[in-house]
């Protein structure tokens, strides 16, 4: 990589590559697609939370004119799928486990007919006792959701108990039990966080079409075309070579489109009818059939010396996994790995359990278990600061990780800008003044400011990139990574353009397609800029070397005597006139010597792993995660003294991103994350009554609108280059959300002196707590 990049490539907030199609209304999302003879599919969800399928009769549905196929779960072969534990089938086969559990599907000439036919499918159930609460579910005699749990295939060394506990993760370092004696102050609390819905504006959908050779093409909104290809293969027993997955534009994902939505059902219906079938979920179907963030109940205990030096942290969490494992083992494992937070704490013990209940499955959602962990840990830390009589920002600063410190398990962290994040946050928010002598609140309101730190990862798993020099000196960049709206296409193209010193317009980004793209595990874990970016930079560097090698034949010199020059030229060092445009080198390569210039890189995240001599790690699906990222967030709030309503009036969010490849996109990720965090903290909670989701609409499930959040959300970008990252960059996709909940909670404590332990902080909850404190 060259140190100097073209002005419009790395480090510039250039507009998105695809932005014109989006503002012109031309972007194609899956529901915008139409294929000749296309049918419309619809999905029937279980009407009961737990039951055995006794019999079914689809004759009435099939008799409806326009209906072309009806598939009911028991008709399917027993192919199991699941990211970590193979506990699901494409449709429920023997049992249904939550209200909304897909049990049958219909294809018809139009959507209205398909939906009407759903009501004509007769399924007889033997209803079983259901369990909705994680504590109840673990008791002896509680209804078991998965009687054959032990026989399921698991892709990691799972630890579990027989009572609906599907995964137990343990991480420990030092000796917590002995450490309490060294502490002057100990604070313990239990903190509960809600089920948050992804609420992407575009619901899940897919379109599947078979060709005459039996190969199916599946267009969908997904975070990973490769996971979809594998999941369809696993669920239906089709060879992967017969499955082509393509990403359309994606209307937001946030983790909710990491695992299958309606792709498998669309393929089944297309197979049954021999026609293309599109299956788009309605808003309430998406709310009741798909997945949400894990509700969690976390007990945290932290001990410190009188001067605020942290000594020990104990963390014990129970996560509601819902009816199927989905990504729960990963979420639980990651949640406990984040329990120490970005602080120097020598003694840590952290345990998490994921528990089946008869509710919607819970899965990946921006933060992946970390928002629950951060809420509990950062609220607990604030309570500790209060008990110590210390400023909460000072307490964090005192214990913050510094470069060269280790993560739990011994991984050395060289790039860590947490102290700078905290210092900039203090300065830009005018923390000391707002904390100690705040400006008066509006009449009838109380004002407060709170802080929280966060750490996260950026990385994980396998990825690859292909960069090819075209005859005219431009490049095609192909990674298979799906841009779900966060802007990764542009960022990756900037990395390629920056590495090869060409203007951004000279890079063509290939749309993700399993028939054409190299492997990419997926868009998630804040990994695309960092992990895919590494592959792009490396493949680009390989292309640069090949360009020099070919040019050296033309110039009759050594490749080491050549350099890339701005604008896409290769020239002899020190001789300004001796220069060739890339196009000339490409022509020479394509038609004279050497063949086309193609750079490829395939990599698996290879950073340091967990040291088993130093710490204990059990039942965690991964021990080698990625580059660690750090941040600090502050919010100022006002509380209405009469209603208890909390309003965030200003927010600051400082993040060490290594290097902002596209600062405008980085700011967008931070501001969007903060607002999703405000929703999580104040209004968002999926609620159940007897196993039924009672708020499956935007009318009843409140995501923030423009008036519910401040305009003044200040992103603060800190750049401590990560040596392994492209141009020093690491990820920022998830962090913006993580510390917002606890920062608001801590601001409420500052404003009115109540220390809340249950999110969201609804007006009712705050008002009740204020009354109790008065």
């Amino acid at each position, binding site marked *: 990589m060259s140190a100097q990049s073209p002005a419009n490539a790395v480090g510039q907030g250039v507009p*998105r590559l695809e*932005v014109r199609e989006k503002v012109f*209304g031309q972007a194609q999302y899956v529901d915008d697609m139409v294929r000749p003879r296309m049918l419309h599919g619809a999905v029937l969800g279980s009407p009961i939370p737990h039951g055995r399928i006794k019999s079914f009769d689809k004759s009435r549905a099939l008799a409806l004119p326009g209906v072309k196929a009806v598939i009911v779960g028991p008709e399917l072969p027993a192919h199991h799928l699941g990211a970590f534990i193979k506990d699901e089938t494409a449709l429920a086969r023997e049992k249904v486990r939550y209200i909304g559990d897909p049990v049958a599907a219909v294809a018809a000439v139009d959507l209205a007919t398909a939906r009407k036919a759903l009501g004509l499918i007769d399924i007889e159930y033997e209803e079983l006792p259901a369990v909705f609460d994680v504590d109840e579910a673990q008791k002896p005699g509680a209804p078991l959701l998965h009687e054959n749990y032990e026989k399921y295939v698991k892709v990691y060394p799972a630890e579990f108990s027989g009572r609906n506990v599907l995964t137990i993760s343990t991480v420990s370092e030092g000796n917590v039990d002995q450490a309490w004696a060294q502490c002057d102050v100990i604070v313990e609390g239990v903190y509960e966080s809600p089920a948050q819905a992804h609420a992407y504006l575009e619901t899940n959908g897919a379109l599947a079409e078979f060709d005459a050779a039996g190969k199916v093409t599946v267009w969908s909104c997904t975070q990973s075309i490769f996971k979809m290809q594998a999941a369809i293969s696993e669920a239906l027993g089709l060879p992967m070579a017969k499955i082509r997955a393509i990403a359309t534009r994606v209307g*937001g994902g946030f983790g909710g489109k990491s695992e299958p939505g309606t792709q498998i059902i669309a393929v089944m219906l297309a197979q049954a009818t021999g026609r293309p079938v599109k299956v788009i979920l309605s808003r309430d179907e998406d709310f009741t059939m798909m997945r949400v963030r894990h509700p969690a109940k976390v007990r945290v205990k932290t001990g410190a010396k009188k001067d605020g030096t942290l000594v020990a942290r104990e963390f014990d969490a129970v996560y509601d996994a819902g009816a199927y494992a989905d990504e729960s083992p990963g979420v639980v494992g990651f949640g406990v790995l984040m329990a120490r937070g970005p602080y120097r704490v020598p003694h840590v013990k952290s345990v998490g359990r994921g528990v089946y209940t008869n509710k919607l499955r819970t899965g990946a959602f921006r933060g992946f278990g970390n928002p629950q962990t951060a809420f509990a840990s950062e609220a607990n830390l604030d309570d500790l600061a209060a008990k110590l009589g210390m400023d909460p920002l000072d307490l964090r600063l005192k214990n913050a990780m510094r470069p060269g410190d280790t993560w739990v398990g011994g991984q050395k962290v060289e790039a860590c800008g947490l102290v700078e994040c905290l210092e900039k946050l203090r300065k830009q928010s005018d923390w000391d003044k707002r904390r100690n002598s705040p400006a008066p609140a509006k009449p009838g309101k109380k004002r407060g400011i709170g802080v929280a730190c966060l750490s996260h990862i950026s990385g994980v798993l396998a990825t690859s990139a292909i960069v090819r020099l075209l005859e005219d000196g431009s490049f095609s960049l192909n990674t298979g990574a799906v841009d779900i709206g*966060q802007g990764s296409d542009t960022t990756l193209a900037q990395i390629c353009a920056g590495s090869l010193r060409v203007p951004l317009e000279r890079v063509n980004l290939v749309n993700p397609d399993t028939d054409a793209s190299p492997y990419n595990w997926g868009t998630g874990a804040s990994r695309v800029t960092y992990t895919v970016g590494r592959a792009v930079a490396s493949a680009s560097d390989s292309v640069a070397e090949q360009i020099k090698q070919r040019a050296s034949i033309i110039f009759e010199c050594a490749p080491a005597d050549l350099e890339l020059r701005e604008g896409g030229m290769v020239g002899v060092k020190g001789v300004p006139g001796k220069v060739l445009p890339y196009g000339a080198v490409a022509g020479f390569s394509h038609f004279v010597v050497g063949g086309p210039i193609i750079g490829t890189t395939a990599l698996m995240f290879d950073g340091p792993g967990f040291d088993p001599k130093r710490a204990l790690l059990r039942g965690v699906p991964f021990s080698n995660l990625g580059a660690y990222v750090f941040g600090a967030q502050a919010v100022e709030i006002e509380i209405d003294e009469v209603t208890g309503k909390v309003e965030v009036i200003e927010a600051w969010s400082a993040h060490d991103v290594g290097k902002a490849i596209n600062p405008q996109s980085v700011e967008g990720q931070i*501001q969007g994350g903060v607002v999703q965090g405000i929703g999580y903290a104040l209004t968002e909670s999926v609620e159940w009554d007897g196993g039924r989701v009672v708020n499956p609409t935007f009318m009843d499930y409140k995501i923030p609108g*423009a*008036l519910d959040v401040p305009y003044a959300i200040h992103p603060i970008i800190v750049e401590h280059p990560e040596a392994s990252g492209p141009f020093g960059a690491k990820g920022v996709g998830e962090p913006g959300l993580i510390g917002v909940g606890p920062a608001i909670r801590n601001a409420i404590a500052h404003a009115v002196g109540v220390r809340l332990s249950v999110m969201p902080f609804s007006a009712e909850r705050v008002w009740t707590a204020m009354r109790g404190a008065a």
Partner: protein
Amino acid sequence: MQVELNVNGEQASLMLDARQTLLDALRVQLGLTGTKLGCNQGVCGACTVLIDGKPARSCLVLAAGCGGRKIVTIEGIADGAKSSAVQQAFIETGAVQCGYCTPGMILTAEALLRKRKRPGLDEIREAMSGNLCRCSGYAKIIDAVKLASERVPA
């Protein structure tokens, strides 16, 4: 029933079901898929179009009732390949992420700026508050509307 619709300045004669929404007629019959279905309940604003210059939720409007009214969708905002001031501002400020709310946001902003030349920040927030966005956090969308308003000749 047969209904004459005027969409983006063009007349179209459509055979409609009485229960059909304007959103459905635009997307399915006219192929104008830039208008999005988000909630089908009039809450999210992704389906916003202009009817006689005013923003409306096309998922709540019956198409059959739109005869004789002027409908503008996202496809009718630009002057050929030349983006409108609002579109251009959305491009420059980074107001677009996944893009699903964008058409509705742009139409709401167009309606605001046709009514008010120089709206203040709070006026913009108020006007945009009926359109939900899950990606951006709104700040850059508000910046875009503000920038567009500053470029509209007074």
